[in-house]
């Protein structure tokens, strides 16, 4: 199997699992208790917190563990909205945020908050001018992701943080896809709140963290027994947190080597796909993108068919096609790039992981070339004689 869907989730590393196992067995203590067993669990949490803090150049005291990226995003945004509701009702975000941010902002609109969704340019990056122009007197929060989950493009967070600081606006950054892949420095980027997840960096699912800058007080999102320094109640997911901590330590240790390895695979994949498959195109920016993200589109074929056929050959990827989404709408991220729906249906995301190698590239491209060709032979919008797509007028078709 060639697994290339690491932006969906990644396999737990052996080192991570080994670190977790004792906490699922003999070291099962509750970190809130006073006896040795509990203190051992507490020590494990402290080490994990230090590792996660270290990955983003933060202080341990600024890290609160959560159930994952989605909870962190919800807490950051709703928390600021509640805290600053008397100071303003305006939130700025982008059109390409993860649903955990997008849907949270939309929910807050039910309570009188207003959101500006910044568009992105053709390469998937926002314009700083647009951001400056969107800021109002009553803007209380800027929430911009670091790297996009679908197209991997990286936003200029240092510039955004500088503007937010000058204007005295809270800056939240969803860094779920970027931590462990590219350097993240909360101090350099003046970030107030930063969301993280464990299972995208070879840690276990069900655990994440929110960085809350020292001095910024955020009411709890989950109320209860006062764990995590009173900030996030509920008995800690000890083994999960230990695993996240280990994954963060490894991610920092291996960052440079991984970047080199993944960039080489990414660039070889993109080059060979675009070179060998007619009417294939890259989505997003060629350079300002995560080292592990490939997102391409193919004219005249549909993504679900491509994913299923790749799966039959032991290759796992993802598509922005409507047919594979729960909502049956095409990817709003790809729409924001200005792509037509028919093109979005033919998109493929291959998100690489450290298990991939350069040897995988030829296997994947050979397989993909064959699948795309097969699907095109049965596509009514592909001319097999000319080996080119057939132009069509959308309005000439019926909707259904």
């Amino acid at each position: 199997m060639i697994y290339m869907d690491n932006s969906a989730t990644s396999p737990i590393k052996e080192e991570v699992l080994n670190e977790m196992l004792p906490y699922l067995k003999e070291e099962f203590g509750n970190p809130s208790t006073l006896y040795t067993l509990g203190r051992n669990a507490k020590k494990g949490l402290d080490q994990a917190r230090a590792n996660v803090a270290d990955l983003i150049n933060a202080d341990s005291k600024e890290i609160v563990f959560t159930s994952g990226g989605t909870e962190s995003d919800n807490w950051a945004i709703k928390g600021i909205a509640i805290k600053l509701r008397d100071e303003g009702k305006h939130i700025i975000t982008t059109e390409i945020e993860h649903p955990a941010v997008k849907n949270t902002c939309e929910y807050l609109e039910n309570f009188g908050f207003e959101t500006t969704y910044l568009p992105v340019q053709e390469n998937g990056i926002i314009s700083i001018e647009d951001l400056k122009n969107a800021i109002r007197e009553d803007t209380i929060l800027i929430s911009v992701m670091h790297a996009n989950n679908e197209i991997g493009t990286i936003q200029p967070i240092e510039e955004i943080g500088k503007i937010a600081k000058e204007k005295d606006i809270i800056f939240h950054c969803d860094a779920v896809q970027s931590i462990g892949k590219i350097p993240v420095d909360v101090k350099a980027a003046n970030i107030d709140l930063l969301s993280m997840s464990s299972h995208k960096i070879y840690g276990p699912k069900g655990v994440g963290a929110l960085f809350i800058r020292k001095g910024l007080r955020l009411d709890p999102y989950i109320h209860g027994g006062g764990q995590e320094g009173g900030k996030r109640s509920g008995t800690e997911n000890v083994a999960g947190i230990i695993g996240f901590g280990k994954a963060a330590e490894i991610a920092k240790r291996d960052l440079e080597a991984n970047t080199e390895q993944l960039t080489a695979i990414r660039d070889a994949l993109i080059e060979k796909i675009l070179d060998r498959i007619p009417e294939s195109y890259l989505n997003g920016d060629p350079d300002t993108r995560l080292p592990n993200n490939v997102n391409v589109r193919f004219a005249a074929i549909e993504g679900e068919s491509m994913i299923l056929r790749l799966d039959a050959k032991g290759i796992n990827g993802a598509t922005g096609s409507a047919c594979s989404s729960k909502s049956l709408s095409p990817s709003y991220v790809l729409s924001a790039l200005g792509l037509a729906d028919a093109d979005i249906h033919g998109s493929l995301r291959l998100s690489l992981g450290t298990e991939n190698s350069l040897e995988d590239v030829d296997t994947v491209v050979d397989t993909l070339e064959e699948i795309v060709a097969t699907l095109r032979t049965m596509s009514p919008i592909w001319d097999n004689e000319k080996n080119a797509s057939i132009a069509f007028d959308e309005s000439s078709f019926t909707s259904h």
Partner: protein
Amino acid sequence: MEYSDKVMDHFANPRNTGRIENPSGQGTVGNPTCGDLMTIYIDVDDNDVIQDIKFETFGCGAAIATSSMITEMAVGMPIEDALKISRNDVADELDGLPPVKMHCSNLAADALRAAIDDYKQKNQ
């Protein structure tokens, strides 16, 4: 969402793909914007029986499987019988489709009807 074995079989090994040159009738339904577009070609003999049928489909697994399935169901059928094949008949023949696919990707019966209408119009 899970496809039946029969859907996967027709998706992985679609029958009767391609086009018929100068067909007796052809019908296209769907819209590439929605992610599904299907064309069915038929050759009909003097007794109004479907002798040959082929399809071209841009779409998901269900769209391809329903297209393939209906070509097997309709070949050798008098057009008046073929007209009676419903979307549900095609889905049933495939041992069912995921609910979310029943509406959007289950267009083969419509495409076949459009092809037969086209044939009838040409032979009025």
